[in-house]
């Protein structure tokens, strides 16, 4: 049985596997949303999904294009105002997993989604932080999902939009932040976890068919590897089916 799949599918499926029934997950749009809903539709049917638009316990049948599509509200347990969402729910410390993506990341999983170049005279103006700065510190832990590439996995960020483990790996503790920060970085090629001591994001699993050379070519720094690196289990038939199914439904719905 040969099951073919894209790197992107591998990334989304691996991210989904990290989620548990008991998680309360603050979901970003794009790959995080796909992963969270895939988890909900496969091994974690009881997971609570929260979108920053205020929808709590939402169960969309189609992936939303925006963070506030009507589908999210229609299928939610309830919908609260945005100030309440950020005050009582995110800052309230009720979220177990925050799911982030970004334009650029460094070895300590700090993220940039603000600017490339100087802030006041930017080369590229990116959308900005949105919920990310406070998601990064107020959730129990952070999962990040991003496709690798030398312009995305950079040596030094031009701007820190949200803190991972800080510029030296010691900043969370130094700033009195009690949450764990990024515990998993799931890419299209491999999975990183922070080293217990240094907090540098360290490769713990490589996706089937991917080589260390490929990873090196798509990362601006020389990434650390764990002592025991395993091969990521390939997508199961069910995982692929469910993911492709929801993506097909989504595409049809948004094109309408």
């Amino acid at each position, binding site marked *: 049985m040969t099951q073919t799949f894209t790197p992107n599918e591998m990334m989304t499926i691996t991210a989904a596997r990290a989620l548990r029934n008991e998680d309360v997950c603050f979901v970003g749009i794009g790959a995080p949303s796909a992963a969270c809903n895939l988890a909900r539709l496969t091994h974690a049917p009881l997971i609570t999904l929260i979108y920053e638009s205020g929808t709590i316990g939402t169960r969309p049948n189609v992936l939303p294009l*925006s963070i506030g599509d009507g589908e999210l509200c229609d299928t939610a347990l309830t919908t609260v105002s945005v100030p309440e969402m950020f005050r009582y729910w995110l800052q309230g410390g009720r979220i177990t997993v925050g799911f982030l993506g970004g334009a650029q990341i460094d070895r300590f999983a700090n993220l940039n989604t603000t600017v490339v170049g100087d802030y006041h005279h930017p080369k590229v103006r990116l959308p900005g*932080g949105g919920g990310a*700065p406070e998601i990064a510190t107020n959730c129990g832990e952070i999962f990040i999902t991003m496709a690798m590439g030398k312009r995305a996995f950079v040596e030094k960020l031009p701007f820190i939009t949200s803190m991972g483990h800080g510029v030296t790996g010691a900043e969370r503790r130094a700033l009195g932040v009690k949450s764990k920060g990024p515990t998993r970085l799931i890419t299209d090629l491999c999975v990183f976890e922070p080293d217990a001591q240094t907090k540098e994001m360290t490769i713990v699993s490589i996706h089937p068919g991917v080589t260390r050379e490929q990873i090196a070519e798509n990362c601006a720094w020389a990434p650390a590897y764990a002592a025991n690196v395993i091969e990521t289990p390939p997508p199961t038939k069910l995982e692929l089916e469910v993911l492709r199914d929801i993506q097909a439904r989504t595409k049809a719905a948004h094109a309408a």
Partner: protein
Amino acid sequence: MAKFMEMAAAIEEHVHDGDSVAMEGFTHLIPFAAGHEVIRQAKKRLTLIRMTPDLIYDQMIGMGCAEKIVFSWGGNPGVGSTHRLRDAVENGWPNKLEIEEHSHAAMANAYEAGAANLPFAVLRGYIGVDLPKVNPKIKSVTCPYTGEVLATVPALRPDVGIIHALRADREGNVLLEGIVGCQKEAVLASKRTIVTVEEVVETFGPRSPNAIILPSWTIGAIVVVPGGSHPSYAQGYYKRDNSFYIAWDKISRERDTFLAWMKENVLEKDTTIFAEHAKKLGLA
């Protein structure tokens, strides 16, 4: 007491050149019809406040209405860039645009503080990030009990708050439902307010005792505009036009195509086209 008005008159009376204007609606209920009227009236030097500039401010910025933007996430949701915002920030077209940038949490708290008549908001935020280095409005206070240092932002108190809501009753009370974002806060924080609505009903009828209703006496003008939030949406009336959000990427990428689209679809049209959009996307 809210006054029922026509769109052109409401914008003329309440929005002046140089005003700070908050047109809120978090993905849902974005007041596009009001935004288009501001563009037709060629308002200038506005400070545009919105958590997510979205297409509505992309259009207003591209048409030269804004001199400053206060925001927390400036993209086309799920699609990519807001190209007119980028062109203004990166290249100063059609004019230089000053930016005051926050996080969502800070903006939401700043509206909340404005509605509560406090001069500032306190949050556990902005920790370990660069935004406070480039936005001098982000400061801090020390908790008088624990000694913890927390971030602060000034309360938002816009000159004008504009939102789109589902319906008004004859007395001018206004009901919101669904994803309500920070619209209530934006209205209560603003000095003057315009609310556009899908329809007017005799009474709201049976409803939750805790329905989100803005009493008539908190509102300046009400304008009835069916479809008034297209391509955003109105819960229970019509769907978000996701295909238009996708199409906007191409329309707005170049200045020419943008200007041509604005001429044909905004400058040469009036508020009535919104009802047509809504009809196409209406719920079964």
